């Protein structure tokens, strides 16, 4: 623990506790946020980072504990109170209104009767200078690249004059180049004497950007490295100190380092044999048209071979779901051909493709992938409704369903009280195991996986990646869509970059520098469209 200095220029949390039904999200957490420092908050999913932020932002009230600002107790019992104290939060997901201009977005919180645009423009100029980024006040928020959108979010958080800026996993969607730019902005903000709380689960970033580090695990503050101490440690020493706190003893160091993003990502799958293997899935000139609001794909030509993992990199919302769904059969292709083992399957529906061995693990695990109100057993046979032996003459055969469910629960080590438990009560990791078990069983030969490890705890992340690589090495093919560049580099044989619905290029994943090349394709493509 650090010395508990509750003087001026410090926001101190004391013994903050917050419980939800079944889980203590924050368990007597104490920490100090000092002005002019970047305070890194590290911890895996579910460690209590988000709860702590929402308490600081006034969106949740702690069950007990106090918050001191400049040494005086300051209850933050509403978001307005947080703003009045100068606490601004940049959330992980964009809160900008895409159809509004940058300026309109920034002025959303204004309370005056008449819009004072002149003052707003002046304030934006001030902030642009501080952030070192040019932001066009008249541009529509939806037209900006993700990095720029984030700069606008930061400007929005600091709009009312900030003393503390909280960034919730700001790097998770950014290219390596954009991350560097963000680091520069943070350095500028820090130089102005503001406090920054930087939340991440990547060690590398914590060391590079942070002045001091606090590690949360299971809702508890399990370690703190003060500013002087962190400065005196070498990167390697800092890593091992943080890892020990982050995982305790239940994970071996190289694995942990890998998962926590301490080391640079490297390809970890075996070679798949190259062009000698036959093509399993071939898309040529595929396009989709008009399905709601998300991006359609245009002229996509890719092929996935037997035993190959083809990664699809790209910023979220650039046509990944259209691509996944057109392969799975949930959307129809408006142009182009889809061949599976040489056979044209463009006209076949989801169920026909499922029977051919073409499977899809969706990223929307809760509302699309599972039915929360139904039992784990039904969810495990959801794609085989009406098929023998689970249904005979249209009537359910509960014994067969339960037997299959128990087999899959055992094989994939799904933690559930029983197969009759409702799927919605399982943890995120176990729901993902249900999906993988369902899709990879019964003759699977090709699987589309969309963001397979998003929001999972690190042990499950490792397990999911292992399941996918094993599936590939046994001859299965994987189309891996992910926004996590490290994950793509570790798992894929080749990585294609998708941008605005088109394939911007394909990178062979051999040796070092893949991430940078993919990043270049991503930024190149984006600047190409938004210049």
């Amino acid at each position, binding site marked *: 623990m650090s010395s508990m200095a509750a003087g001026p220029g410090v926001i101190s949390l004391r013994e903050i*506790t917050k*419980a*939800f*039904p*079944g*889980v*203590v999200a924050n368990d*007597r957490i104490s920490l100090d946020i000092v002005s002019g420092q970047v305070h890194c908050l590290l911890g895996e999913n579910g460690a209590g980072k988000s709860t702590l932020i929402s308490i600081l932002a006034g969106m949740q*009230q702690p*069950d*007990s*504990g106090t918050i001191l600002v400049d040494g005086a107790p300051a209850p933050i*019992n509403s978001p307005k109170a947080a703003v009045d104290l100068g606490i601004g939060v940049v959330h992980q997901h964009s809160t900008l209104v895409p159809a509004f201009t940058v300026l309109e977005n920034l002025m959303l919180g204004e309370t005056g009767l008449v819009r004072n645009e002149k003052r707003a423009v002046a304030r934006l100029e001030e902030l642009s200078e501080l952030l070192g980024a040019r932001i066009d006040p008249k541009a529509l928020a939806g037209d900006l690249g993700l990095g720029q959108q984030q700069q606008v979010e930061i400007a929005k958080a600091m709009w009312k004059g900030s003393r503390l800026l909280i960034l919730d996993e700001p790097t998770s969607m950014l290219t390596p180049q954009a991350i560097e730019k963000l680091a520069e902005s943070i350095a500028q903000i820090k130089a102005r004497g503001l406090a920054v709380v930087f939340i991440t689960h990547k060690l590398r970033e914590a060391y590079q950007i942070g002045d001091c580090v606090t590690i949360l695990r299971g809702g508890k503050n399990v370690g703190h490295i003060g500013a002087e101490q962190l400065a005196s440690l070498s990167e390697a020493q800092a890593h091992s100190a943080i890892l020990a706190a982050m995982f305790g003893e239940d994970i071996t160091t190289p694995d942990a380092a890998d998962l926590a993003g301490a080391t640079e990502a490297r390809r970890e799958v075996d070679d798949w044999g190259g062009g000698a293997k036959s093509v399993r899935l071939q898309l040529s000139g595929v396009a989709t048209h008009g399905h709601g609001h998300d991006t359609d794909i245009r002229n996509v030509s890719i092929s996935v071979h037997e035993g190959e993992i083809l990664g699809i990199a790209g910023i979220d919302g650039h046509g990944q779901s259209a691509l996944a769904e057109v392969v*799975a*059969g*949930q959307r129809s292709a408006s142009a182009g051909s889809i061949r599976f083992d040489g056979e044209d399957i463009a006209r076949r*529906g*989801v*169920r026909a493709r*499922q029977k051919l061995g073409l499977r*899809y693990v*969706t990223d*929307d695990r809760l*509302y*699309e*992938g*599972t*039915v*929360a*109100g*139904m039992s784990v057993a*039904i969810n495990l046979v*959801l*794609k085989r*409704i*009406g098929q023998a032996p689970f*249904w005979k003459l*249209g*009537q*359910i055969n509960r014994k067969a369903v339960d037997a299959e469910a128990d087999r899959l629960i055992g094989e994939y080590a799904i933690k559930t*009280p029983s197969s009759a*438990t*409702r799927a*919605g*009560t399982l*943890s995120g990791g176990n729901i993902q195991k249900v999906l993988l078990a369902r899709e990879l069983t019964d003759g699977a030969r090709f699987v589309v996986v969309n963001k397979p490890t998003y929001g999972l705890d690190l042990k499950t992340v490792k397990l999911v990646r292992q399941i996918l690589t094993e599936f590939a090495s046994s001859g299965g093919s994987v189309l891996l869509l992910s926004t996590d560049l490290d994950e793509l580099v570790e798992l894929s044989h080749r990585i294609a970059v998708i941008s605005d619905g088109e394939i911007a290029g394909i990178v062979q994943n051999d040796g070092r520098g893949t991430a940078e090349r993919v990043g270049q394709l991503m930024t190149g493509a984006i600047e190409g469209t938004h210049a």
Partner: protein
Amino acid sequence: MIEELPRFRRIADGLVRSILPVVLALVVAGLIIVAMGSNPLDFYAGVWKYGLTGSNWQDSLRLMAPLMIIALGLIVSFRGQLWNLGYNGTYLLGSVVASGFGPVLYPVLPGWIVTAILIVGSLLVGAIWAIVPAVLKARFGTNEIITSLVMSFIAIGVVNLLIKGPMHDTNPKVTAPQTATIPREDLLPFLAGTRVHVGIVIAIVLALVAQFVVSRTSFGVRLDVFGASPKAAQHVGISRSWMIILLFCVSGALIALAGSVDVLGNVTYQRANWNPAYGDAVMPFVFLARLSPLAAIPLVGFYSVFANGGINAARSVGLNSDFLLVVVGLILVFMTITEYVGNKRRLGQSYLPVGMKQSVMAIFGPRSSARPASGKVTT
């Protein structure tokens, strides 16, 4: 995360949530009766007397037949989260098929053939009328609540036009806008020794079939997947458009069937501007039954007795029979409250809205205990 309740607790919880709103509504209705200067005990005794005793139970069952079939029609669409509110118009369309064509066809064809034609005809008309909101929903995502309601208004108008025009009783002595009466011997047969027509048997059999379909067949699972999440349904390979059209058509067909069964078994002719609005009355009970066909049987049965006995009971204590709809409304209100409180309780939360407890405690509560003990959950 929500904790799984043990089985008996879940059943008990379900029973409480189904019965408690009815009990509370009856208590509050009693208070209203007191306020209006009558004796509520007299009223409830009247409901018992006129609803069940003597041969009154037979009238209750005659009322229950259409109510139960409408309930099934609602359950079919509601289970798919499709809010088909066109029941009043659909019911009248079904009944006008029987009351309009019955008097014309019975004299020329054997009775059982005509009955079959009328029943199939009403099923078809109900299904076809439901196609419009279904296609609009499936193709353009139009809100089916509005389209089905509007189609219901149109249907009511069309039915009135038909009765005042081509389906008017050909007997020149009849000047009131109504159809000819179907003779007794052509109506649905009575159950042995009673005046209860076989419509109630049709209703109960349909309920049992529906229960089997939703609980045991693959279609039942598909329906529940679709109802729980259309996205999940698409993921599993269920066509959203076809599901919407199918459910709307089955729902419309059943509700129209209720109309023709009611005419052929009970009312025998149809007046213009007649609209019993059975669907409105049966709606809360469909939800109290948690959209289960089996559970709907006792609840709809209860309402049939209450409505049948209540008309005379209300008159005997000097109330208007509109009072029955007040009770139905009260049941809906208490059902909503019971659900809210029940869900809060299951989540282990306070019954008070978020923040209210804190604000109240900050003003009125003792200073020392204004903050709850650590670890205890409050919201």
